[in-house]
């Protein structure tokens, strides 16, 4: 946040470790909360809320992947498969047993965590690119199992239609209602992630990322913490998959294929590895940039082209611009959007004095 800490003195460790160490930060948080909970849903129509909903789902998934890749340094390209585990677990529980979302959602997350920890076992022996290939195998195996097990996938189409989430007898079906549903869990996920990474667990993750042998020597059980990282990350992925399932009203394994894993990796790399805010920035960037680019181009190009020609031009130009912007942002700040934001913030912290 754009706060200046001059004049604030901390007298206890608790104060120093608080999530928001400055009094003014609480005000900012309150304002952001009001913004999301009251102003946005009132000010925006369904269309814009639907875009925010997609971002909120992506935030949960990106946070999970960042805990694993950014904080613990274990590469995974199987994130989408863990989402599908969560999605199908929740869908089966919701349809076969008629359970409500507040049971299926954690259940989907836990099942994904279990499978994630199993897929993460190779991380105990291998690192880097080798681990990437091992998790790729996990992605393909999970896809194959879902595709070939009617008991999980619900038949040849591998689709299970789930009812809308229901709370106190009230169904959430419009984008506005789903917005609150998703916002709650995205906020919860963010808060949890912020607390995980500043706890003993989070510090152990960072130690493993920076130098695993050193981490082991100072007494961190790296087997336990690597698997825990996979489990937590997959739990997030599972919850993301469940949210997605409830948002769309269907679990379908084709929505969780390898390309989605790559998209999430792109989010955290663009946003910033090893940062909570970076995950959010990345999710916003990857989800919204193609949409914003199109909205920008439409009014300009419609002056020159008819609908058919315009569509062809927009599709191609958008792809080029999207790729170009990713390169642009990564070149001006290789550590991602989060670092860019911190640079800007640090500049204003001492403004107008540049020292």
């Amino acid at each position: 946040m754009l706060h200046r800490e001059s004049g604030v003195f901390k007298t206890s460790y608790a104060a120093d470790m608080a999530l928001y160490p400055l009094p003014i930060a609480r005000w900012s948080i309150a304002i952001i909360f009001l913004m999301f909970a009251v102003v946005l849903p009132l000010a925006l129509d369904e269309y814009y809320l639907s875009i925010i909903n997609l971002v909120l789902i992506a935030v949960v998934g990106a946070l999970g992947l960042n805990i694993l890749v950014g904080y613990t340094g274990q590469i995974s390209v199987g994130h989408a498969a863990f989402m599908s585990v969560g999605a199908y677990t929740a869908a089966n529980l919701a349809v076969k047993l008629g359970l409500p979302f507040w049971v299926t959602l954690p259940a989907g997350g836990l099942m994904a965590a279990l499978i994630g920890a199993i897929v993460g076992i190779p991380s105990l022996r291998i690192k880097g690119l080798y681990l990437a290939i091992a998790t790729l195998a996990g992605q393909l195996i999970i896809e194959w199992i879902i595709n070939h097990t009617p008991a999980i996938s619900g038949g040849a189409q591998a689709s299970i239609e789930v009812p809308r989430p229901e709370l106190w007898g009230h169904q959430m079906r419009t984008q506005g209602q789903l917005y609150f549903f998703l916002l709650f869990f995205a906020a919860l996920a963010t808060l949890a992630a912020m607390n995980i990474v500043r706890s003993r667990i989070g510090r152990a993750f960072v130690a493993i990322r920076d130098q695993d042998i050193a981490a082991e020597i100072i007494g961190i059980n790296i087997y336990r913490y690597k698997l825990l990282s996979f489990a937590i990350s997959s739990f997030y992925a599972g919850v993301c998959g469940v949210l997605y399932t409830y948002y769309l009203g269907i679990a379908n394994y084709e929505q969780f294929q390898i390309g989605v894993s790559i998209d999430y990796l792109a989010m955290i790399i663009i946003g910033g590895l090893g940062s909570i805010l970076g995950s959010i920035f990345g999710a916003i960037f990857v989800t919204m940039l193609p949409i914003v680019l199109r909205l920008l181009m439409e009014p300009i190009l419609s002056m020159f082209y008819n609908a058919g020609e315009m569509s062809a031009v927009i599709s191609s130009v958008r792809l080029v611009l999207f790729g170009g912007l990713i390169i642009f942002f990564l070149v001006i700040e290789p550590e991602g959007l989060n670092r860019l934001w911190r640079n800007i913030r640090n500049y204003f912290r001492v403004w107008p004095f540049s020292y």
Partner: protein
Amino acid sequence: MTRKRHWLGASCLIGGLALAAATAGAQDKELVFGLQCDRTGATQTVGVFLCPGYHDYINLLNSKGGIEGYKIRVMEIDHEYKVPPAMEAHERFKKEGAVLEGIYGTPQTAALTKKLEEDKILGTSPGFGTAAAADGRRYPYVFPLAASYWSQGAAAVAFAKKELGGSLNGKKIAYLFYDNPAGKEPLAVLEDLAKAEGFELRTFAVPAPGVEMGAQILDISGRFKPDFVITHLFGRSPSVSIKELKGKGYPLSKVVSLVWGASEADIKAAGGYEVANGYHTLQFAGVGTDFQVIKDINAMYQAQGKPIPKEQEISVFYNRGLVIAALHAEAARNAIKAKGGAKPSSEDVKKGMEAIKGFTLGGMVPPMEVTPEDHEGGGWVQVWSVKGGKLVKDGDWFQAYRDVIKKHLAATN
């Protein structure tokens, strides 16, 4: 550092302007059609031909004054074959007041099924989605319109029966399919027909991405030695199957492909018409450019001083785009007529779609009859075969084993 600030400020400003421009209102005598497309994603080889076909037909209608006095505005969104952008596209169409939308892709169709019903906007999914969507009572706002994979599988068996002299008893049929839900879907119908017709069915799955099928083809040509092969492949794999079958010496005149392995592009990628000679394909739209509507489109562009659309080169996909556009327009026409010229709502257009009957566009569109119960329109297909360097029509529109299809539809309820 100040440069960065300018960048931020400028981008916020442009963003705000664009949002303002995007919310400009619609006109009175105008209908909005939403069209989802994939021009840059995994299935772009289809989209870059199909979507221009759609636009060309609508342009033709608009140049003639629109539908019953209403101009059509097509709002196309390229979702790159991803699901979240498809959801965004639907919400955008809804915001723009679209009376219907064309969905593109099976996962996208699945993802939107519920939302379409809640928002009461019909979505068409020709060649995509689940076969069960043919049941209009269960999926009131999804219209497959083209023959489902069940109908295609049944039609392929009927075609094999005809080619093999009228009886399949004791014959052997191989089913070579892409190992995904869409590939597996016809299995249930094929197994049923194997029992009813007394032929032996063996299935050969090709794992994604479907470019490696040497073992399966060797198994078919060397060991199983079937009397007929039905293939159901996507993307690059149909061309590989043609090449491999040819290479292993299996006669292509005993191979029939379902609709996504059936384009000129597949034949060219397999090595050309010489190599693929004899290959049979199922189609849900007419093939080639020898149709009045295409001549009209070309005449319109020539009169405007524009070149003839080069997308007509792959007429299988281009014509499918035309057919989808034509059916959309026909539904809107029915709706406007039913309202006595007043502007129809999306609900009216749905009723209009359910009233489509006897609309053939000079043989381009099958003689389908869409009803509130049957959103598939009867499951009509045509066989086109590679002969003498081009795709040649092999018989008229036909439908097959409707009783079996109906039994399966009833069973999913």
